[in-house]
């Protein structure tokens, strides 16, 4: 990454700052999701931690990941439509 959107004249380029901020936000969101998903699926799928991640555990985790994404999207849509309703009331 270059010096936070400044060119050789030392002037700050707004566009490139915005781009970098957007990338950082996307990374932060991905980390947030990954952390929560790992926590939730570990709780659901790993009963007693054994010597390795066995086949049925892997299957469970894969399914859990997909359902977590479904749940995330459902929550996002429900929250969004609630916001629209609240705005319409005002």
């Amino acid at each position, binding site marked *: 990454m270059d010096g936070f959107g400044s060119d050789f004249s030392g002037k700050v380029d*707004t566009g490139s*700052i*915005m781009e970098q*901020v*957007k990338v950082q*936000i996307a990374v932060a*969101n991905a980390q*947030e*999701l990954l952390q*929560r998903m790992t926590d*939730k*699926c570990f*709780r*659901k799928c790993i009963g007693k931690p054994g010597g390795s991640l066995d086949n049925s555990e892997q299957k*469970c985790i894969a*399914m*859990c990941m*997909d*359902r*977590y994404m*479904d*749940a*995330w999207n*459902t*929550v*996002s849509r*429900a*929250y*969004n439509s*609630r*916001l629209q309703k609240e705005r319409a009331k005002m």
Partner: protein
Amino acid sequence: MSMDSAQNLGTATADPQLQHFIEVETQKQRFQLLVHQMTELCWQEKCMDKPGPKLDSRTEACFVNCVERFIDTSQFILNRLEQTQKSKIAFSESMSD
């Protein structure tokens, strides 16, 4: 990013384009964070028993209700705090009369 720091950043930058960008992104980020929190809460406490091969309609409805009731709860608490605050003020005013 907290609202305060974003607003401070917003007023500190003379660039209106950047200021607008920060305001919009802050709003978006608050939305995202609440989605993360509600998904987690509704998942582990309320709606998800055992993840199946697809999200069945009952579970989906549970998530939708969970979001709606969470927001209702937050609004209820806010209103009630406001009410008790008002009656406290009214009480202390009547005491000083």
